[in-house]
């Protein structure tokens, strides 16, 4: 099975969202987008709206849960939190990512 470019990016974004929710606790979509932008120094996300496509996928996989709540400014917002299966998935994906990035890192350094 081959992965298209978009599939790889999708997987990366999923991993980032899971990691963010795991580290920061429940957050709303805007918060997650801001956080990823800050950490990645605005390199990953072109459109903030993309985050919602990722969120709806993760909810359907039951890796995260969504709930309406109030934001810090007392605005109605949907809060996302990581589920138990999501945490398992995060561990697995992280290992996977580390393995791949290790391989790619070695590969690239060997070229030099």
């Amino acid at each position, binding site marked *: 099975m081959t992965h298209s470019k978009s599939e790889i990016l999708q997987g990366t974004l999923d991993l980032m969202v899971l990691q963010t929710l795991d580290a920061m606790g429940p957050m*709303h979509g805007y918060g997650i987008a801001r956080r990823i932008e800050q950490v990645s120094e605005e390199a990953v996300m072109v459109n*903030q709206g*993309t985050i919602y496509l990722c969120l709806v996928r993760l909810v359907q996989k039951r890796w995260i849960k969504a709930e309406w709540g109030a*934001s810090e400014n007392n*605005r109605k917002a949907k809060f996302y939190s990581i589920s138990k299966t999501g945490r398992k998935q995060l561990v697995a994906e992280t290992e996977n990512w580390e393995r791949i990035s290790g391989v790619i890192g070695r590969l690239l350094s060997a070229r030099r």
Partner: protein
Amino acid sequence: MPTALTELAARVRALFTSPSLDHDFDQELASHLAMLEEDHVRRGMSPEEARRVALIRIGGIASIQQQHREARGLPSIDSVLQDLRFAFRLIAKDRWFSAAAVLALALGIGANAAGFTILNAVFFRGLPFERADRLHMLSWESRAGRQVGVSHAELEEWRARSRSFESLAAYSEATMNISDDRGLPAQSSGAWVTANTFSVLRQQPLIGRSFAPGDDRSGADRVVIIGYTVWKTRYGADPNILGEALRLNGQPSTIIGVMPERMRFPENTELWAPFIPIEAQTPRTERLLSVFGRLNDGTPRREAQAELDGLAQQLTAAYPDAMNDLARVRVETFTDAFVGGRARPMFMTVMGAAIFVLLIACANVASLLFSRSAYRAREIAVRMAMGATRSRVVRQLLIESTVLAFLGGGLGLVLASASVTFFDAAMQGTALPYWLVFTTDSAVFAYTAAICMVTAVLFGLAPALQVSKMSSLDALNECGRGTTGSRRVRWLSASMVVAELALTIVLLTGAGLMMRSFMALYALDTGIRTDHVKTMGLQLTSATYLSADSRRIFFDRLQPRLAAIPGIESAALTTGVPPLDGGERLVEVDALAGASRARPIFVSTVRISPSFFNVVGVPLVRGREFQDLDGSPGSETVIVNERLAAQFFPGADPIGRRLRFIERETSPAAPASVAPGWRTIVGISGRILHGSPQDAYLSAVVYMPFRQDSPGSASLLVRSALAPDRLLEAVRREVQAIDPDQPVLPIQTLDQVLAEERWPYRTFGSMFGLFAVMALLLSSMGLYGVMAHSVTQRTKEIGVRIAIGAQRRQVSWLILRRGLHQLAVGLTIGLAGALGLSHLFERMLVGITPTDPVTFAMIALLLTVVSIAACLLPAWRATRVDPVIALRAD
């Protein structure tokens, strides 16, 4: 794959909650935008500028909404429509392939739709009443496994002590006479019912009132509710009919209501009157009521069953004598109660056969698809090279399968409704209850649609996966010939053919067994001369004939009158028109002094008037026929058949010996109560078949004189060359000369009686046979298709072989060998499967065993011949290959 499943479930759910999810997401986006704006304002932007930047940052509201919708739901309608258009174009292009596939599927799906239409009517749809699923019948089951009614006393006890039912009602079916001043007396099927019957059913009369609580108390004024047909035909739909007086079985009664046309509960009833038990109907052993009730909402059937089991134990403790024969109480739905015993496995087997036909059709179409896969692989490879994902390709191929399945399903429904019409016609005259209607209703449509979906996946998935798996590069290079993938494809389509052959063997064997037992049944000789013999029913239901004496007097007066009708050769009365009998009873013989007593056996009993043997044209073997005095006190005589004589008196003369009936089965706990009355054997009859038509063996028969305990229900058996309607008219005149209120039931020839009794075998046997023929056609078509395809594929190879000198015989053997190989494997698996399943037929067969070697051998031979025929044409074509053309061709 559980994650994939949860995801799919969520996506399907999203389809149905789309509007609320849209609203949800709008709110989420709005709050996102607001927060983004606030942040920008905080950083010093003007509100307008902040809003503009926020909209840019989020990346186009409409596009995000659309993508979100697609991400959470199923693929958009647009892309499915596109696939559909493509599928239709392809189906139109490959006309011959599509026609073969659609036809095969139409046969398979049609057989299923037809089978389900019948099953639906018989088992699922139920009675046409509000919440009919809550209506249940309560009955006893005898130790012999037969359904037994309920006595009035038991009904009263259940009513008082059962908590599971809203209320309990009961009916007792009977033929009723109506007579009045309007015309000839008529007979209709009627039911004596408890006063609450219609309220339990939740049915209202069309006009007039229903029965009121007091109507079934003893001493109440006699009232009657008439059916729509009686109202229309007898009373000309007179709107002022209420309050009209008539005589019901000779008793003055008043019409209080008319039931609507669609209400003929319980079976085909046209008259209803309150059940008021008379003295003779009060004992606990008089179990003449069919009891039913509406289960309380929320009470499951098994809870009611448990409660009634408990009550039955109490009854057994209180009345051990009355409960002696009964094994348990049954609580079941009306349809289950009606279609018990032999009919259920028949229906189930036919449905099973239909499913087999469908499986064979699926294997057939799948093997066609496999054959085409090399050709499809090239097209698919191009699409995948242009960026289509594998799942998208599989989806496209499955949509094609679905379109094929639904085209087949549509045609199948047409075939099904035609065959159901045919089935319905075959069932006419078998006295089915009025609620059994074989129609293509919404349930049948839903079932057919579901079958189409399942079928599409069944035959389409494996080929679709196979096609999409063929690596794109390979397919493009190879131009789809001599490919690595094609060996696998060949194997797959060959195994489909093997599966078809094996399934066909099983089906053919089943059909063969049914046909053979059907033929055995037809070849069965009833032993009598049926030419010119006609029969008419006569039921003395009127209150005038409550005593056996009054009935005997009626029949004594009738017989000389019948014999005197010009054109009647001879006439007799009987309770068992061959091949029927008048009931089974347990009988024992009086042992000679010193001999041990023989074990009692079950025999068929038949009451006859003296001229019976004369009418059926079977003279006695020994002894004398009944005379006018036989059956009077002091001359209790019987005639037995040879079978009984051989059983009880091997090597001895039965004439002059005595036998008697044992009313109940003996059990160690309670000694059998034995009806006294020894009866002396005066004659031995020839071979006449009595019993149920399924029992092909000749059972032991005891004939009793009609005059002894004359029954109220008799059949006139007349040998006459007169036309049936003239004969009926003449008989009616004589009957009504004795009793003007007494009607005569319609006339039948003996051949009609016989055909009516054999309908299950005729109908189910021919359905089964039809399915088997379909299966044979489908699988031979499949075999032919695969063979023909392989010849086309190997044209080049064959060309080379011929060019270097292969003989034509060798070439055709090359092709034939593969077909024979598949046939051998299919035969082996199929015969093993048929042997394994044959015990399912055990209860339906007559005269042969389920592992009948002749049937098995014939079926194997038949399939071999047909299969070889299917291989011959391709093999012959292979020998016609012109090496010059074949080698140049590409």
